[in-house]
């Protein structure tokens, strides 16, 4: 799999691609982007690129049949094409998810749930008349396949990223900002998320039943931060590349750990997924306009699907079920209280979200039980617990935890972004880049870097 944080991408694919892209006249750049994306995808997923191409073309053709000019309104053939497109896209999604659940022999196509979600949103937007100009073929295929988004999202919308633009001119400002966000994201991923993942491995190595309670909490927080730095870092890299290619910045994370409440958290965390579920599931089901009971039911459907989207082991259903309950609790019980005392909402995020990530992280239910028994040691002691384990891990991980925590507050991040054109910040960023390269080189030549014993 070709990752943004790999040497092949950083020093081979991306520079070569950019050079060709910029040397190509602006009106042909989408062609370059399409072929570049297919090459990128095929480097990671091999023959699965054929499936991506077929789905892309099928969706373009069906989309052309779904599209209608507003004055005419929806005709039966538009509706038929829309249903066919839904059957194709939702069908592909369900079949692959189901197969992967039944047998572990099925290899899931790289990033398929991300691009299929884009395809579904595209068809729905067409059907709802939200796309007002007939999509061109190159715009469409690039939208589905563009390499900055094809493997791990974000699930950008047709209308939000600038696909309607005619040519792909890139301003100096967009290029510089794009490069800035790319390097910043790379740093988060390589220098914070990857090393923090070792902490979680350490805890698994000890065995959940034998960790001390402070370490259990540190693990929950460390995992929460690692997940955030990993995914936010990736999203920043993706958005940065997008900007360098002449597209708008896609916001996928908006300081979620600064949110006031669980519901708010999920408007800021993986925001493109959350808004996808809102716009294409929750609101079509009636949203909150059909009474409280119906709202709760709609939320239940959304969270059930969110759970299934992440995985089909029981822990994902528990994870999404707990989030559903917490959101209902916030929305219907403590809403007024949170408005008056925002700190309660913050405490929800800081205390409960890490616990939900623990459920997310541990697929085996008896392991999960052991972990919670250590988080809340009221139900018995652990097995062979070493009370010194917390200090041992803290001595190693405190700098990573501290920097990640600081990045969770909007202030630090905004200060960096505000000063992104100042020389000292740029020099710091270049240092970050080369340290990242060092880490990548070492981990590429030494597969044990993160797992040495």
């Amino acid at each position, binding site marked *: 799999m070709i990752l943004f944080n790999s*040497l*092949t991408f950083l*020093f*081979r694919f991306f520079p070569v691609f950019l050079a060709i892209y910029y040397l190509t006249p602006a009106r042909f750049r989408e062609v370059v982007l399409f072929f570049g994306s297919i090459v990128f995808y095929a480097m990671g997923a091999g023959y699965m690129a054929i499936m991506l191409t077929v789905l892309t073309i099928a969706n373009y053709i069906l989309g052309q049949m779904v599209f209608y000019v507003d004055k005419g309104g929806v005709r039966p053939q538009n509706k038929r094409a829309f249903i066919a497109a839904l059957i194709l896209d939702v069908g592909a999604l369900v079949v692959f998810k189901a197969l992967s659940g039944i047998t572990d022999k099925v290899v899931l196509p790289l990033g398929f749930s991300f691009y299929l979600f884009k395809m579904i949103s595209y068809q729905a937007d067409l059907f709802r008349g939200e796309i007002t100009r007939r999509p061109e073929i190159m715009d469409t295929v690039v939208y589905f396949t563009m390499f900055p988004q094809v493997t791990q999202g974000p699930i950008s919308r047709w209308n939000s990223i600038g696909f309607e633009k005619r040519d792909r001119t890139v301003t*100096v400002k967009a*290029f*510089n900002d794009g*490069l*800035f966000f790319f*390097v910043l994201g790379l740093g988060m991923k390589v220098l914070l998320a990857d090393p923090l993942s070792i902490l979680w*491995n350490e805890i*698994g*190595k*000890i*065995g*959940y*039943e*034998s*960790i001390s309670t402070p370490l259990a909490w540190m693990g929950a927080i460390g995992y929460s931060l690692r997940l955030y730095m990993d995914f936010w870092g990736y999203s920043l890299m993706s958005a940065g590349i997008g900007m360098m290619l002449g597209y708008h910045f896609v916001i996928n994370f908006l300081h979620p750990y600064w949110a006031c409440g669980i519901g708010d958290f999920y408007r800021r965390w993986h925001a493109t997924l959350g808004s996808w579920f809102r716009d294409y599931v929750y609101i079509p089901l009636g949203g909150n306009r059909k009474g409280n009971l119906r709202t709760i039911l709609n939320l239940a459907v959304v969270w059930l699907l969110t759970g299934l989207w992440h995985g089909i082991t029981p822990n994902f259903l528990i994870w999404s079920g707990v989030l559903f309950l917490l959101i209902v609790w916030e929305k219907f019980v403590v809403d007024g209280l949170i408005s008056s005392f925002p700190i309660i909402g913050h405490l929800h995020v800081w205390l409960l979200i890490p616990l939900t990530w623990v459920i997310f992280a541990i697929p085996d239910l008896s392991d999960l039980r052991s972990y919670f028994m250590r988080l809340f040691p009221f139900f018995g002691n652990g*097995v*062979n*617990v*070493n009370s*010194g*384990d917390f200090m041992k891990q803290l001595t190693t991980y405190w700098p990573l935890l501290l920097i990640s925590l600081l990045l969770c507050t909007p202030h630090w991040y905004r200060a960096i972004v505000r000063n992104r*054109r100042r*020389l000292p910040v*740029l*020099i710091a*960023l*270049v240092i970050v*880049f*080369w340290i990242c*390269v*060092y880490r990548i*080189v*070492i981990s*590429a*030549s*030494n*597969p*044990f870097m993160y797992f*040495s*014993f």
Partner: protein
Amino acid sequence: MSFLKLLWKRFTLLCILALTALPLMIIGWTGRKTLYSEYELNPLRQPGLTLVFQGIHDGVYPWQSLIRPKEEGEEEGASAADSSSADEATVDGTTAGAGATDEAAGEAGTAETPVYTEAEDAEVEEMKTLPANAIAGSLDVIPEGVCNPVMQAVDYDVVNVGFLSPDDTEYNTDTEGIFAKNGIYYKLGLVDSTYFTDALFIGDSRTVGLCEYGSLKGTAAFLAKESVNVYNILDQELRYTDHDGESWGAYVEEILEENQYGKVYVALGVNELGIGTTYMYYEKYREFISLIREYQPDALIYIQGIMHVSYDKSSSDSCRNNTVISQRNMAISTLANGRDIFYIDMNPYVCDEDGDLYEDLSGDGIHLKASAYENWDRCLMENAIVTGE
């Protein structure tokens, strides 16, 4: 000039990146045949400048090419060669070990016969009053029961042969023994924890785990650190935990020089699984055992066989699998002489009949869980040499 100024003004970040990349590229490319000749470079996948970073990691710095441009690959020997060959082997299979093994097999001229044979022609000099746990044997044949047999494991056919040595490799077992020169051997037997009050355990993260979660902390001394292996163990500071449970950073030679132990237990081998061949590992291991013997002339040395990995790992990982581990255990077990160097194997205590580590004893398939270290403790207590008084 004004163009460059404009370029700098408009693309400052890109310019700094390019300006810093340029010298790295030049150093990497010019040094690829000299300073960095030990490393593989696939120009299609990575730029020459990555060599500089690999070098820095292994202590090979760019300025060394200025100081002595012709003497490449001398100091960096072990560590540089290791990481590059590991990489090579991981990527394309058989290349890493083959050459080195031929060479190694050629060198192994002074090999002795394998240790595990029947004790037949016992030439006992003094057999009058043998203690109950003693067995008579000859100097070059170790009787059964003096060392553990090497536990075998099912081969799941995933092994990268670059990490193995040919089956007929002969191992040079030259480690000088000083104990029981008269051909009297002692059986491995049961002891209690007081046996370990003069013991030192040396090893990697697994030994760190034994120190933290086993029952011998505060009884035995431990000298261990995550990620150490036979190639680098002398070069880095390990964590020393003394018989009272106090701990501080220390080097192996420092500790061996300052203290005398009755028993020295060695458990190294899991970090070496992705490095070099069995023979290379074995040779380094032998050097290490000889070094311990030099500093600790009176100690019993216990070579602990490498603990196996779980089925999940062993059936999918081309280097961390029980096929490689068993071969390496076979190799290091030949270093045991049954007189003052012994081989013990904990695998029967933690593995199923296929030789795979029980899944429920391990969180990651490689280490024992905290709750499972008692198995290791038990193995140590049931397999100790008591000389009989």
